[in-house]
């Protein structure tokens, strides 16, 4: 499961993720990171059974943690099921079902935003 971890100005320089890994023994996969002077945002992938533990530990260390459930917003009204998003996505989030309707595997998204650029109909948005 993907977790979006944000931490404030003060915490940016602290090794929060490393500490959580050490203390919990959970292997965390960092999929995306944006560290800026005032804040940090990291997208991590955590085994489903360890989500609760990791969340608690992160929060105890002062981070804000959200479970990323709808990484990509897919506006079905705007979408015409063309598939322009499919081949540009490095994570293979998008595919067609047997009826040639676009389907999304949200759990794979790492918020790169390439699909947003590729969609001719403005039907996709990702969490910033």
């Amino acid at each position, binding site marked *: 499961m993907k977790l979006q971890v944000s931490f404030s100005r003060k915490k940016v320089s602290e090794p929060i993720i490393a500490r959580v890994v050490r203390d919990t023994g959970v292997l965390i996969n960092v999929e995306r990171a944006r560290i800026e002077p005032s804040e940090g945002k990291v997208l991590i992938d955590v085994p489903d059974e360890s989500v609760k533990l990791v969340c608690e530990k992160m929060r105890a260390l002062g981070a804000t943690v959200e479970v990323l459930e709808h990484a990509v917003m897919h506006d079905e009204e705007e979408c*015409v099921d063309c*598939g*322009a*998003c*499919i*081949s*540009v996505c490095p994570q293979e989030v998008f595919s067609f079902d047997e009826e040639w309707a676009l389907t999304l595997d949200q759990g794979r998204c790492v918020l790169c935003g390439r699909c947003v*650029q590729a969609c*001719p109909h*403005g039907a996709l948005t990702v969490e910033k």
Partner: protein
Amino acid sequence: MEKSIEEINTRIRDGNARVVSAEEMPDIVAELGEEEALREVDVVTTGTFGAMCSTGAFLNFGHADPPIRMERVWLNDVEAYSGLAAVDAYMGAASESTTQGNAYGGAHVIEDFVSGRPVEVRAISKGTDCYPRRTVTTTLLLEDLNDAVMVNPRNSFQCYDAATNMTERVIHTYMGMLLPHTGNVSFSGAGALSPLANDPAYRVIGSGVPIFLGGTQGMVVGQGTQSSPATGFANLMTTGNLKEMSPEFLRAATFTGYGVTMYVGVGVPIPVVDLDVVRSTAVRDEEIMTNIVDYGTPHRERPAIARVSYADLKSGKVEIDGEEVRTSSLSSYRKAREIAETIRTWVEAGSMELSLPTRRFNAAKRTRPMRETKVVPRVREIMDTKVVAVAEDEPIRTAAAKLLKGETNHLPVLNGEGQLVGIVTTYDVTKAVGSTRELTVVRDIMTRKVVRTTPEEAVDVAAQKLERHNISALPVVDPAHRVIGMLSAIDLGKLLGGRWQL
């Protein structure tokens, strides 16, 4: 055996016509045989839904009081072509907003109209004795217009090249976003469901034939512009009443970095009148071949790097040079099916009858490239041939002296063989002076990745390179990587022919 169009229409009127989609036809022919399929099937329905820039509508606004000869017209700030009679304009789908750029264009105006949304119309005129008014601003709904007639110069290509990109950067094209190093392939068209793929010889599709266009019944006007059936790239000029159309089958779109376009739904019911039609409608995706071409090549003739079928493209991946590359479509197969299904319901309900072309098209027609009487200037013609260069092992001081003396800001750096290996600017030298690191020779401070051009490159392409990399000069190299000139933004400026100034 042959079947007359009257026979087919009688069955449609009686509610007895057998209508199948172009997707079903190959199996029916395989199972029943051609003769039996001809007896059995009356109509084959086709459909396609994809980006068709060559789309637009003639609009008649009616007369204002006092009347105005609308010489320039904007609809929601998108200019329509108004070099027509007093209160008509042609809104082209690809026209872009004066204020919003490619976020909104002609296609969006058309979609707003068919969705029932109000559109602001502004027009200006010099004023004449018969049309004294000089400006008008009003807000109109589609129903307020006297006429809104969609006329699309070229829709529904028989087939389309698939696109990939062999360069090192992402490129944005009308074939969508193409990743570097052949990272993906995009394609367009519905394959075996595409109208013209089912009648490539133009036997039953021609002028006057009824079609599905944008959700209503329209018709084929004639052979589309740039139609090239002799090379497998036929298309259609189509028309229909915009007032009857639906946003389900007319959708505005923007290709990032390219511009506005319109997704249009087109479908043609094909009357199964003889064995030739049976054979042509029995086509499968496996038999419709197209080339994958490199859109990274900035020339008209783009190299084809693989030949594949629509079945390959639709499978989601193709093999290029032993590597698996993911493919995806720009047009909607789901919508194409919906169109073929809608035609089926119309024909089965007796609300759509078929006809043969009133005028057949020229199946031998072939598109020619533009005859250019004034050739595009090449880099060779405007480059500066006096090249001041520096060797990579010379001291930085030498580079500084050359930059000062040579009155240049770009110093190509050469290796022992005289080949281009880097570039140094006054900025690099300044930075070196301020650096705390021990920097002594040019090699230490040069930029190694040099954006370069060749003498034969079109000036427009070189200008794009300068813009894209935000630089102001390009070394011009020969095939042996020797610098034979420099091209600077100043040289380009002298041309003033890069783009007409408005």
